[in-house]
């Protein structure tokens, strides 16, 4: 008897969870996804900026730079996927998406620049990439 009760509860909870997942996204839900994506990307951007700045001062091993940049890039691509996969419920969400998505793709590109510049020991490119990352972090911080 107890077992059936337990099994029944599990099924109800599971169905409930699936049902919640199938509900259409609201404007608020979309905004929260966008803000989270921007926040995670900003975190990756700033982290990479620190790595780049340290590389400029010759403080990090190249193997480390490669891995740190790769990890940051993975984070940004997860953020992009999250945003792209979320259904757009209305016009204001569409505007938000058009505002945030390009920032995310630019972030991914600039993060990549750090790895390239560091491996080719191109100091100018590296310092440019670091500056651009600072700018991007500011923009991303403005997403609310």
């Amino acid at each position, binding site marked *: 008897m107890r077992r059936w009760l337990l099994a029944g509860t599990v099924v109800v909870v599971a169905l409930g969870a699936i049902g919640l997942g199938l509900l259409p996204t609201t404007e608020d839900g979309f905004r929260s996804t966008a803000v989270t994506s921007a*926040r995670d990307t900003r975190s990756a951007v700033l982290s990479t900026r620190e790595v780049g700045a340290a590389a400029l001062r010759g*403080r990090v091993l190249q193997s480390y730079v490669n*891995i740190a940049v790769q990890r940051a890039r993975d984070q940004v691509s997860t953020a992009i996927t999250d945003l792209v996969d979320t259904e757009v419920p209305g016009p204001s969400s569409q505007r938000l998406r058009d505002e945030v998505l390009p920032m995310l793709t630019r972030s991914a590109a600039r993060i990549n620049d750090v790895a390239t510049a560091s491996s080719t020991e191109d100091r100018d490119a590296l310092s440019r990439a670091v500056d651009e990352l600072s700018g991007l972090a500011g923009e991303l911080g403005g997403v609310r």
Partner: protein
Amino acid sequence: MKRVFAITLGILTAIGGFVDIGDLVANAVTGARFGMRLAWVVVVGVIGICVYAEMCGRVAAVSGRPVFDLVRERLGPRIGLTNLIGSYLATLFTLSAEIGGVAIAVELATSVHYLLWVPIAAFVVWVVIWRVKFEMMERIFGLAGLSLVVFVVALIQLAPPWGQLAGQAVTPVVPAGEDWATYGFFAVALFAAALTPYEVFFFSSGGVEERWTRKDLVVSRLNVFIGFPLGGLLSLGVMGTAATLFLPLGVRVESLDQVALPVAVALGKLGLAVVILGFFAATFGAALETGLSAGYTIAQYFGWQWGKLVRPREAARFHTVVLVSILIGVAMLLTTTDPIMITEYSLVFSAVALPLTYLPILIVANDRDYLGDQVNSRTANALGVTYLVIILVVAVAAVPLMIISGMGG
């Protein structure tokens, strides 16, 4: 003189052996998000592991019984089995996370993807468990783990606003932009990182295996009371560096390379190399301990012959459990689950599994038939009961906090 040397060596090993992937991750992540506002949890956790390990060491030395032996003996076969399943799973998750940590440390030094290193790291871990002598194993990795002192050096070099860090440490409140559930979740993670069950399984089993007697109690206590707090200081160093570099930027720590970044910024390439070595030693040493502990829990519950001092042939069931556990740990990593994620789950599991391993030890430490005149003093009991309450609260809160905060979101 020789004795002083042996004691010093033991303490140094305890310091280096204290920090593992759980401490590295939990401290760096909370440092970046909360500054030093959760530092008090590390202090509470370190005192807790001292209380617990001291009792286990005493019980092991006087009665000759390791932790999991007593778990079944006091709680009976059924509750003991529930406990075994919980503790084994917690240890298994930790083992997997540590192997992942070893692989990532090698990745940071070589740029070769960590998943390629996972099977190699696991194989080497197994070979060391299979071949290398207990004492040697403990010493090498404990001492190499000491290189994590570099976090403390880096913190000083970073010249952080000390007043601000101290201010955060003494006003443990939830900062703006974070909620109670997240604060609570990371408090649980930090506490579990300091008070991991496998550390105690390993410590007490090692004591039994090295045939500690009453005479060894002083040394065991010195190791615990000096080694663990200094190990906790390394943890706070990790937290402090993350608080200094990442908190002002609002960067969240999500991978092991970020944990090392403050040291690179402060100390350059050499510092970075030392950190990577420290990561390697700490996670490798902990992988050995968790691998053995996975075997200890099961073998001690069933009463099988276990241990490193007998020929593996004579402890076939024990060595099979160790081998299979390592293979499962590798399989978990090869599903490409993020090792940091596995670490966080392992901490939650550990928190939940802890009370039932702690309770029997507290009871046995009071049993004159087992300990004679070495039973708990009033102070030890006051502390022991206080920590039982804390451990229970943490265990009950762990899963709800994990769900509400979405693993700290």
